[in-house]
């Protein structure tokens, strides 16, 4: 498999593995269940929007998936490092949810059109299963730390695919 096939795998596995940490963080920000649910709704609507954006693209080959990775990475890094008053946090989080949703939807649409998609899905489920067992033994330092690390990883993937593409 080439880097082209590995990177989507890293992204999908990473997203699922980081999800529980992200949820814990989001729960802390939202406090009420309604707000928590609304954040998810915002994410889902945005993901549908992102998906459709890719689908309606005429030239599906000419896409900058590297920037999608970098964008997602930046959102996770911001989440990990955000230090603002609790009062303002929900407003920022709503924005982050929308950006993340759009990028995620776009990535998903692109990914499902890739040749290796089927294999990656199977692998991703298996890897996530083993990873989650492993992670359950790790004492959470702070969910934000894991989220930020994943953000850096995504940015790394983005830059790598960018460099490889241009070279």
């Amino acid at each position, binding site marked *: 498999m080439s880097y082209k096939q590995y990177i989507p795998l890293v992204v999908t596995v990473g997203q699922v593995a980081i999800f529980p940490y992200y949820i814990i963080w989001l729960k802390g920000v939202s406090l009420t269940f309604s707000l928590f649910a609304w954040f998810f709704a915002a994410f889902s609507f945005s993901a549908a929007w992102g998906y459709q954006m890719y689908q309606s693209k005429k030239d599906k080959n000419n896409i900058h998936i590297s920037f999608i990775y970098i964008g997602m990475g930046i959102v996770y890094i911001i989440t990990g490092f955000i230090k603002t*008053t*609790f009062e303002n946090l929900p407003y920022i989080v709503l924005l982050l949810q929308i950006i993340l949703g759009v990028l995620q939807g776009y990535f998903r649409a692109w990914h499902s059109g890739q040749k290796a998609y089927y294999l990656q899905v199977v692998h991703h489920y298996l890897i996530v299963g083993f990873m989650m067992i492993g992670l359950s033994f790790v004492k959470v330092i702070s969910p934000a730390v894991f989220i930020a690390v994943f953000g850096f990883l995504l940015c790394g993937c983005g830059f790598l695919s960018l460099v490889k593409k241009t070279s």
Partner: protein
Amino acid sequence: MQKIKDLFKKTWFLGCLVIIFATSVLWNIPIEKRKYGLSESSLVTDYTGLLPERVVRVVKAADRQELQKIAKQANESGQRISVAGLQHSQGGHTYYKDGVVLDMRTYNRILEINELQKTVRVEAGATWEDVQDAILPYGLALKVTQSQSIFTIGGSLSVNGHGRDIRFGPMAGTVKEMTLLTPTGEIKRLTSRGDSEEWMKYVLGGYGLFGVILDVTLELTDNDIYTIHTEKLKTEEYESYFNNLMKDDNAAMHYARVSVAPSSFLDEMYVIDYNHTGKQDRSTSLKGEQGVRLSKLALDLGRHGGGMEDLFWRAQKKYIASIDKKEITRNNAMRSESTFMEFTKPGRVEVLQEYFVPVHSYEEYIKDLKKLLSADDKNDDFKVHNITVRYAAKDNLTSLNYAKEDMLGLVVLIQHGLKEKEIAEATAIIRDWTDLTLKYDGTYYLPYYRYQTKEQFKASYPDWEKFRTEKLKRDSNEVFQNLFYDHYIK
């Protein structure tokens, strides 16, 4: 159907959906975001979160037999019990290290409304709002509450709260009967007239240290309709204004606000009176929180201090002038907004303090206070955001009474940082303020955070030793405890 399906395939449509949804979420993000309260898995705190502590168990109060069992067992085993209402008290009054907390919020039924005698019997975990909801259709209203209706009956009676009413005396005086679970696990039915053992004297204003108030019968009055009268005054005019108001039978409720804005600091005031119209009401519904976001925005501006605080004061004056001559029901005058006060900034806290001074000392006291505080606290860590003035009538009914004569209470909203140095500085200013209050034969309110020294407590509440003796007599194993008791009285 096909059209809808097609619509969902349009990028622009999904984009609009996201934007519309996000805008409505933005508008509905709740203002109340603070985490505080009871928890068995993490630390327990109250309204300000200043005194986190671990407790062993939180028991949701459901029936009196169970509560009785808990008290009896604790009396034998040495377990400590604290009682919690809505935890708006701020000095650890509702919990104790490794103790059991009785969460009274679930003990909240309205038991009986007697329209003829104008009374309501209610379980102590109910809020004033619950009571207002129940008595409104009968054209009845409460005699004394705080200015908001967000507190529990048990919590309010245990601090002997006070509010805008200037006619019915202390809150404790509105209790006709009470069912009490004593520290030894007995259930006693007490009446205000036949209370020869003086239980009520210690339970009311007793900070949950003399047992659990299970239910109370409260005296009610009519849900009168008032006209609001507002006026701007100079601080030195207030005393005589107030004395005249007390002589005017038409006046039922009153409060005032003193400027803390730099350009009129403690010089300007406005008063808000509620005057009888002779009309009563059975139909007007209870008002909800109105204009919360706008009030919060205004308060947030004021929180910056300096010119912004001047702007905030001007806005308040405008608003107050705009309600002049409007009509309001008694029930609605007793349920002001509170959510807009929410403040959540890491590393900072907003607390309340209240100082009481005899009515006749008010003018000189404010003059002296001016020397103590800085008029413009924009660059200070210790900031005063608001001072409301209330009347607290002389109280002979409770042991730890804050009104040994007719008093004016200054409710102060303060903000300060949480670094050691900042807390020390706030403590020093508040102690100086307390000393000044004591110089004028005043007191300070006990439900708030305990910045004061034990000496200041003793000077403010000279009856405290008797309070302790009675506590030990009635609760010899000291079953009922809280951090307030630990700090001041033990």
